[in-house]
């Protein structure tokens, strides 16, 4: 990085962020399946092993529990492993290590040890892939105390949120919106970033709040633009963090707009929209003019790719919920 500001894709921003971390902290390691010579199946780790060596950018055996379990051991030795899980659907063999060990070990030691492990997971659909390659399992991590869960929606956040995740002394599950990997935007690698877990208003509006994170932020911005043409003023919040959730920001927006629609790719049932709806309804009971509505995946396995356009929340489904919310007479 010689320039401080560059137009980068999300994938390249993550690559740059890993590079910065490897350069500045000798304790940072990158590990996972195919992250070395191949540079990862999405090329997100491209060139890192060449520049930092096999000792720091580590191709691991094909065993996710082993990857996370050894990352925990490395963290105990003082390293800061950044682990890649190749696809969302392949994190489950590691789930036990994440939930029973990584999440709980700091508390188990009454704070005497720290577990600075980042788990990068490309997630979400719309890439035309086969089974297990398009899921959004963030709820399954957010429910678990001890983990932090974040998801950037743009290149600058991708860069900085990863920096912050790596610097955090807590385990962070970092969900990468894989369908947006090639979306490009300005990244200032010298800017001082805001807090990792704060939401950001990405479009101001007065009639209704759309809250989303990761891949759905763009969809919501498009929906807001389309709604504007019909004279509806939608505010769009990029939540950025799923554990914790910046409820203060959502509350503030809802106190203004009186209506909230939460959008995510993950199934609605027990999804993050449920938590946001429950809490915001409690916080804003007298402000809400409509129930909090949720747009997300269905209670069905992620479908074969020829059906994913129907399964995933798109512009039209978001607008449909917006209309339904606006139809309420508060």
């Amino acid at each position, binding site marked *: 990085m010689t320039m401080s500001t560059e137009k980068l894709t999300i994938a390249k921003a993550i690559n740059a962020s890993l590079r910065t971390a490897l350069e500045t902290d000798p304790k940072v390691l990158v590990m996972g*399946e*195919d992250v*070395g*010579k*191949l*540079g990862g*199946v999405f090329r997100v780790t491209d060139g890192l092993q060449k520049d930092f060596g096999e000792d720091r950018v580590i*191709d*691991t*055996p*094909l*065993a996710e*529990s*082993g990857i996370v379990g050894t990352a925990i051991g490395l963290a105990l030795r003082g390293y800061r492993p950044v682990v890649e899980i190749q696809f969302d*659907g*392949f994190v*489950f*063999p590691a789930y036990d290590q994440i939930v029973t060990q990584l999440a709980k070990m700091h508390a188990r030691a009454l704070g005497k040890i720290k577990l600075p492990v980042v788990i990068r997971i490309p997630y979400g659909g719309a890439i*035309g*892939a*086969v*089974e*297990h390659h398009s899921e959004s399992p963030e709820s399954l991590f957010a429910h678990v105390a001890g983990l932090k869960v974040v998801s950037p929606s743009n290149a600058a956040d991708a860069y900085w949120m990863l920096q912050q995740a790596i610097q955090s002394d807590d385990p962070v599950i970092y969900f990468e919106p894989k369908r947006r990997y090639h979306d490009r935007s300005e990244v200032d690698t010298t800017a001082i970033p805001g807090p990792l877990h704060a939401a950001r208003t990405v479009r101001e509006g007065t009639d209704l709040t759309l809250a989303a994170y990761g891949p759905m932020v763009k969809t919501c911005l498009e929906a807001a633009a389309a709604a504007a043409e019909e004279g509806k003023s939608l505010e769009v919040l990029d939540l950025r963090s799923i554990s914790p959730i910046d409820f203060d920001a959502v509350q503030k927006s809802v106190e203004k707009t009186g209506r909230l629609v939460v959008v995510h790719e993950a199934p609605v*049932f027990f999804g993050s929209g449920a938590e946001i709806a429950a809490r915001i309804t409690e916080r804003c009971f007298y402000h809400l003019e409509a129930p909090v509505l949720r747009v997300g995946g*269905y*209670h*069905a*396995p992620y*479908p*074969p*790719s*020829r*059906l994913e356009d*129907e*399964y995933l929340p798109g512009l*039209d*489904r978001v607008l*449909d919920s917006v209309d339904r919310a606006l139809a309420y007479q508060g």
Partner: protein
Amino acid sequence: MTVDSTAARKPRRSSKRAGAKKAAGEPELVQLLTPEGERVEHPDYSIDLSPEELRGLYRDMVLTRRFDGEATTLQRQGELGLWASLLGQEAAQIGSGRATRDDDYVFPTYREHGVAWCRGVDPTNLLGMFRGVNHGGWDPNENNFHLYTIVIGSQALHATGYAMGVAKDGADSAVVAYFGDGASSQGDVAEAFTFAAVYNAPVVFFCQNNQWAISEPTERQTRVPLYQRAQGYGFPGVRVDGNDVLAVLAVTKAALDRARTGQGPMLVEAFTYRMGAHTTSDDPTRYRRDEERELWEAKDPILRLRAYLEKQGLADEAFFAGLETESDALAKRVRETVRSMPDPDHLAMFEHTYADGHTLVDEERAQFAAYQASFAEESK
């Protein structure tokens, strides 16, 4: 088809024997047909096939390769979203697939197109998931061929459980669990070894060591030959030349016979090579060198059997020409079937989540149908 496998039941340790290819430091490799197409003998595994059977194996491999190539082409043309080619692994798959009986049961990975062929699965059935119209969708019980499994190693446990059931039933069927060299690192495969050993389940673990797990060479998974893994779990392992269809057939048959006669599990490591990319999404030039591929081209499983057939005069020009025609016809049928595969109905995504129904699914289906109908309304 006669496969004499009695000797195999008591694995011997004689190190000097014909057919046991063993370079210095390299483990034994059961081989019955050299890369040059010469028949060699092996003290533990022998095979005696009729010319027709030999031609049959050749035909299986040729048709499988043609189907596989056609699928790769269809992916390039945008008809499939992805394809996982078996190019180079035809002998490992046809040899082992042909070793199974109808009542045996097979648990494949996502690359077992040749095994599927042997089991009688129509190859076009395999394409649905790669086209994105379903996640498999065939009836596993029709040909005792389970659905393709993508989560690496999972199916080893399903196979073991199925085999435990076979044993409970007192049946003399056997089960085959396919997996790759990469999969050998997964805890599930190790647990399958443990369960199979403890319950003496009639399951053959068939590992196609094609040298690569995407970009990672086998040394990233193990520092000793994979077939040796079995020993520590209390059952035998053997490495077979995975590009020698005769040896694979003989060894797998022996392992299956062992299993069906109550002698428990066995691990077969078929030493082979993935000639193409991991899948059509992969670019192997990033991690391996052309020379390696060239080395393995010289061991091509199809050329080697063809050389033998020709040298021995077991197949004539008419046979090869006829097979060419048959291949073309298969490719054409595959092409046409794929192209005419309809997209599933939108409501299909709600089907089969449950066998006995689920009120939430019903509710969401109804909402979705109403939502879609609202567009139809609008566009009226």
